[in-house]
C-alpha cells in the first residue's frame, strides 16, 4: 500500500513537472491539414512525372539552404558551391516523390515550425493548381472555378496562408523589405544558389503558363517537356538576373487567378527573407524575426480585393522563348523598388 502511494506521488510530481515544462516551453502544435479533395488529385504527377520529379529538387534545395545556414558554415561561398553541385546532381537523379520540408530541413523545423507550415501549405496549393490545369477532364472554361475553390480552401487556414495581395502591398508596405537590417544578407555569399533559385522561380510559373496555353493532354505534355529541356539546357546556365514576379512569367495565369499568382510571389519572397534572416549577423533571435515576418505576410481581411492590383508588362509573353526581358533588366522588381535592385 505504502509502495503504491509513493508511486502515485511520483507520478503526480512527474505530471506536474511535465506540464510546468510545457507551459514554459515555446508551445506550438503541428496543426497539419490535409489537401483539398478533387477528381484532379495527382493528375500532374501522373501526366508529367518528369517535371514533378524535377520540381522536387527545387523544393529540396529551398529546404536544404535553411538547414545549412543554421549550421553557420565557416566558408559560405564553399557551402554555396557544394549545394549548387548537389542540386545539379539531383536534377540528373531526381527522387520519385516530394518529401515535406521538415524531412529536408529537420533542424530548421525544430527552430521555426511555422515557417515549415506556411511553406508546405503553399506547396499543397501549388500542387492543387498544377493538377487542375493538367486534368483534361476539367474543361478550359471551368478551370477558374476549380482554381478559386482551391484558393478558397487555402485561405480558409489564415494562420498558415500567405496573403493574396500583391508584392507591392505585402513585401513593400507590410514587410518594408528594403529597410530591414538583414536585406540581401544571403545573396552576397550565396551567388550560385541565389541565381539557381531565380531560375527555379522562372521555371514554376513558366509551367503554369504553358498549361494555360496548351490545355490538351498531348500538346501539354510536349510543351512541358520543352519547358523542362529549356530549363535544364539554357535557363540554369543563363539564369535570370533577378527574382521574376508571377505577372512577368505567367501573365495569363496571373489574370486568371491573381490571388494564386500573388501567393506564390509571397512564398518565393518568404524563402528569400528567411535566408536573409538566417544569414544575417544582425539578427540574434532568428525564430522571432522569421515569425514576425510570417505574421506580416499572412492573409488579412480584405486582401482578396487587392489581388488584381498589378500590371502585366508583357501580357502575351511566350514562355517557351525565355526572352531577353526575363534574363536582363530591372524587371518588375526593379520598377517597384524604384532603382536598380535586382530583387531577392
Amino acid at each position, binding site marked *: 500500500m505504502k509502495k503504491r502511494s509513493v508511486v502515485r506521488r511520483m507520478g503526480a510530481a512527474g505530471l506536474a513537472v*511535465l506540464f510546468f*515544462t*510545457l507551459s514554459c*516551453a*515555446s*508551445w*506550438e*502544435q*503541428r*496543426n*497539419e*491539414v*490535409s*489537401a*483539398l*479533395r*478533387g477528381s484532379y*488529385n*495527382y493528375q500532374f*504527377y501522373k501526366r508529367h512525372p518528369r517535371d514533378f520529379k524535377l520540381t*522536387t529538387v527545387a523544393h*529540396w534545395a529551398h529546404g536544404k539552404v535553411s538547414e545549412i545556414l543554421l549550421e553557420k558554415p565557416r566558408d559560405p561561398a564553399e557551402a554555396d558551391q557544394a549545394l549548387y553541385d548537389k542540386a545539379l546532381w539531383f536534377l540528373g537523379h531526381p*527522387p*520519385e*516523390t*516530394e*518529401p*515535406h520540408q521538415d*524531412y*529536408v530541413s*529537420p*533542424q530548421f*523545423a*525544430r*527552430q521555426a*515550425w511555422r515557417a515549415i507550415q506556411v511553406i508546405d501549405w503553399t506547396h*499543397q496549393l501549388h500542387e492543387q493548381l498544377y493538377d487542375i490545369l493538367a486534368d483534361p477532364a476539367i474543361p478550359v472554361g471551368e478551370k477558374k472555378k476549380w482554381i478559386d475553390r482551391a484558393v478558397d480552401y487555402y485561405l480558409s487556414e489564415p494562420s498558415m496562408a500567405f496573403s493574396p495581395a500583391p508584392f507591392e502591398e505585402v513585401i513593400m508596405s507590410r514587410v518594408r523589405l528594403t529597410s530591414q537590417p538583414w536585406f540581401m544578407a544571403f545573396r552576397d555569399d550565396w551567388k550560385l544558389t541565389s541565381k539557381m533559385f531565380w531560375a527555379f522561380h522562372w521555371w514554376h510559373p513558366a509551367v503554369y503558363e504553358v498549361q494555360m496555353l496548351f490545355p490538351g493532354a498531348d500538346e501539354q505534355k510536349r510543351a512541358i517537356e520543352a519547358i523542362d529541356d529549356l530549363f535544364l539546357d539554357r535557363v540554369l546556365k543563363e539564369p535570370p538576373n533577378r527574382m521574376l514576379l508571377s505577372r512577368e512569367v505567367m501573365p495569363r495565369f496571373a489574370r486568371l487567378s491573381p490571388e494564386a499568382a500573388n501567393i506564390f510571389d509571397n512564398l518565393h519572397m518568404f524563402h528569400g527573407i528567411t535566408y536573409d534572416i538566417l544569414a544575417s549577423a544582425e539578427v540574434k533571435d532568428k525564430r522571432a524575426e522569421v515569425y514576425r515576418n510570417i505574421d506580416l505576410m499572412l492573409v488579412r481581411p480584405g486582401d482578396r480585393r487587392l489581388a488584381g492590383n498589378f500590371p502585366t508588362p508583357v501580357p502575351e509573353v511566350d514562355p517557351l522563348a525565355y526572352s531577353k526581358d526575363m534574363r536582363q533588366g530591372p524587371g518588375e522588381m526593379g520598377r517597384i523598388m524604384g532603382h536598380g535592385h535586382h530583387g531577392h
Partner: protein
Amino acid sequence: MAMKLCAGLLVLLFAGAVHAADHSNLEQDFPTRVEDAYPIAYRAMEFQASGAYEHGGDHGRHAGEFEPEIKWGFMKNAHVALGAPLVFPGDGDMKNNGDIALEGLYNFNVETPVFPALAVKTELTFPSGVDSAGVDVEVAAIATRGFGAHRFHLNGIYRHLGAAGAGERSDLFSFGLGYDRPIDLDHLFVADFFIDRSPQAGGAEEFGFNLGVRKQLNPWSVLAVGLGSGFGASRTPDLRATVGAQWSF
C-alpha cells in the same frame, strides 16, 4: 436505409480533403513497433495493411499475422484508427481473431531544439473475435526528439487485459526506443528495441528488435519492410519478417 445513412455519413466526414502519404510518420508495426508522436493530418484518411511471418515464439513454429487498419485525422493534431489484428498460428488456434481495436492519438506539441514532441495514445480492444472475452485497455505515452537528421522515439505502454486467463497477468508494461534516419528523399531507415513484461505470471521480461525501411512509392502510398527477432524468453520469435503498404486518400 441504415446502409445509406452510414454511406452518407462517411461522405460527409471524409469529403473535402486528400492526404499525401508520408513515409516519415511512423506507425506501429509498420514495420517497427515503436511509433512517433505525430498523428496524420487533419481531414486525412489512410488505409494500411501489414502482414508478418514469425518463426518460433508463442504462436508455434510458424505463424502469420495480418492487420488491416483505417485511420482518420478527425481534428487537428489527432487521429482515430480502427484495426482488426489477425493471427494464424501453426497450431490453428484462432483465439481472439476478429477482435476490433479502436485507437486514438493526440499530439500535444511539435518538437523544438530543447523539447520533444509528446503524444498520448489510447487503444480499446473489443472482444468481438473467436473465444474472446473482456475489453483490453492500452494507454501509451510517446515522445519524439531529433538531433540533426536522426530521430529517436520513446514509447511507454500500459495494457490492462479485461479477461486475463489462468496464470496470466492482467497488467502489462512495455517500453520501446525507436530510431529513424533518411537514407534519401524516398527511403527512411527505421529501427527499434523494446522490452515487454511477460504476460505469464512469474515469466521473465521479453526483449525484441526490428530493422526496416519505409519507402515512399508515390505521393499517396508507402511501402514498409522489416526484419526482427526476440530474446529473453521462449515466447519471443527467432525471426519476424514484416511487409506492409499504406494508401492515403
